[in-house]
């Protein structure tokens, strides 16, 4: 079942002068199509100005399409009557934690959403407690948000959305202003909400590492979706991504460079462990190879008496591979 469905969406930002005459038009979305399955974890990538934030605001009904429609759980965002219901269903977390926390006490902020939709007092209490528990912030419930770290503030913001009992959360670069620790906490929280509570997550980010564990990666450019697939599929297409001015995760980049240098490393490596495994395998093979072809110092490095450097056997065979297998390297994965 799909929770978000954007159909042929067009949107322009317009600057008008005092007389309502249009001074400037900057197109933000042009023919954007995207369906998101309920319960999935989707990562949206794209360089600056590709329309990610504009799309996010469409889902929440903060912006309305000039042409086309956006449906959230089959509700049309253009329908005024449904707006509150839509915002309840699809919550939103923004980049700057300071500018989205309304309450002066953590739990009062979390209660803001339920209060707006008229949830009875006793139930607000339950929802607030539950939401704070879900993001692991219960012990900060009486604190002033100003005194929390960036990552904690973002988790409060997520709790504020969770208290609305949403089916879907859209996060627009929630980690952009955080330190590595805060970033990790926020991403872990989001992933938990997805796995444990089945909340659909749409994560907009510039950090490729955050996309690795997504179910699906969507790449935007020029206001439309240009790539769409599993992280492995998307990150296999390194050249294409680079053309879109995007990076790939560091490990993928390393694997890519290794392959370019001639090592038979498969495409779309996403995690450190995978690359390690591949290299270990190659190493093992490489060791045998060097045994057969060259003198013994490769296999028994601790001897090191004949003047050659006593390599520890980890980088040495890699060098061997580098030179030995150049001709066997596979073509680009694209």
């Amino acid at each position, binding site marked *: 079942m799909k929770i978000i469905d954007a159909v042929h969406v067009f949107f322009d930002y317009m600057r008008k002068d005092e007389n309502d005459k249009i001074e400037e038009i900057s197109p933000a979305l042009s023919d954007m199509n995207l369906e998101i399955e309920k319960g999935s974890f989707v990562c949206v990538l794209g360089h600056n100005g590709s329309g990610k934030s504009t799309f996010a605001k469409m889902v929440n009904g903060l912006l309305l399409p000039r042409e086309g429609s956006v449906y959230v759980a089959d509700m049309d965002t253009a329908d005024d009557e449904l707006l509150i219901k839509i915002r309840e269903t699809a919550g939103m977390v923004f980049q700057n934690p300071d*500018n989205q926390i309304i309450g002066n006490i953590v739990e009062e902020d979390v209660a803001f959403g339920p209060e707006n939709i008229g949830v009875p007092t006793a139930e*607000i209490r339950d929802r607030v407690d539950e939401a704070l528990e879900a993001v692991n912030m219960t012990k900060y419930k009486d604190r002033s948000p100003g005194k929390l770290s960036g990552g904690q503030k973002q988790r409060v913001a997520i709790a504020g959305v969770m208290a609305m009992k949403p089916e879907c959360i859209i996060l627009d670069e929630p980690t952009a202003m955080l330190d590595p620790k805060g970033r990790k906490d926020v991403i872990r929280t989001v992933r938990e909400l997805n796995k444990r509570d089945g909340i659909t997550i749409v994560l907009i980010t510039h950090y490729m590492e955050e996309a690795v564990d997504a179910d699906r990666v969507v790449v935007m450019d020029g206001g439309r979706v240009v790539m769409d697939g599993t992280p492995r599929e998307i990150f296999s297409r390194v050249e294409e991504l680079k053309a879109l001015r995007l990076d790939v995760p560091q490990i993928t980049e390393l694997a890519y460079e290794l392959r370019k240098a001639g090592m038979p490393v498969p495409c779309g490596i996403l995690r450190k462990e995978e690359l390690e495994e591949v290299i270990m395998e190659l190493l093992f093979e490489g060791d045998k190879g060097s045994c057969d072809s060259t003198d013994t110092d490769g296999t028994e490095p601790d001897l090191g008496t004949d003047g050659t450097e006593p390599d520890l056997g980890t980088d040495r065979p890699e060098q061997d591979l580098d030179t030995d297998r150049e001709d066997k390297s596979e073509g680009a994965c694209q």
Partner: protein
Amino acid sequence: MIRDITIGQYYPTDSVIHRLDPRVKLASTMLFLISLFLTESIVGYVFAGAALLAVIRISRIPFKYIVRGLKAVVILLFISVSFNLFLTPGEEIFRLGFLKVTREGLRTALYMAVRLIYLIIGSSLMTLTTTPNQLTDGLEKSLGFLNKVHVPVHEIAMMMSIALRFIPILIEETDKIMKAQMARGADFDTGNLMQRARAMVPILVPLFISAFRRAADLAQAMEARCYHGGAGRTKLKPLRYERRDYIAYLLVALYLVVMVVTRWL
């Protein structure tokens, strides 16, 4: 210095004062402020001071923390005291050049200083023990009748609450901008008044821009969380009078009686 402003900040501890209904605290603060102008006698001021001290003790807010809040208004205090000191006509005690100090002047200046200090401590005590949300809830509820004459009470209350929340953020930002400009060679501490005022421009412009951007972001975040005005809103902590609130009202009434009596002492 700018960080020392404690007015409008909330000090989270648990005390009876913290738990009082915000309407009680609002009314009491108002009555306390009025009472300062009811009395003219030393006894009255001593009594008011004692009452204030007692409330501070009960509120479990460190005395030092409250006094620190006074530092921010020292200049204001100084100006109003000197005006009273030098400009009140009456029986002369001594003169410094063309400035003469009168008995009446000394008296009013002293009273003025005490009143101002009490006033500031009293009102910061209210904000220190009441979360801005409670405070605005209190205002909204006590002034709810104004809705009938089309005063947007909820909206005003919401604006106040948000303003209070952003005071520390904007103060921090001012600090940051000042440091950034100082690193570029800006000088805020020397020169005459005009020069100093002009030096503030490079602080105010970025501050305003950032404040507007924050406001836009915040409005969007509020909308995203289904905010659509006061209609149909419920509360996590709805206001309800408890026994302690009635007791507090009673104590405030007693205090007022004593203050009125001291008028004739």
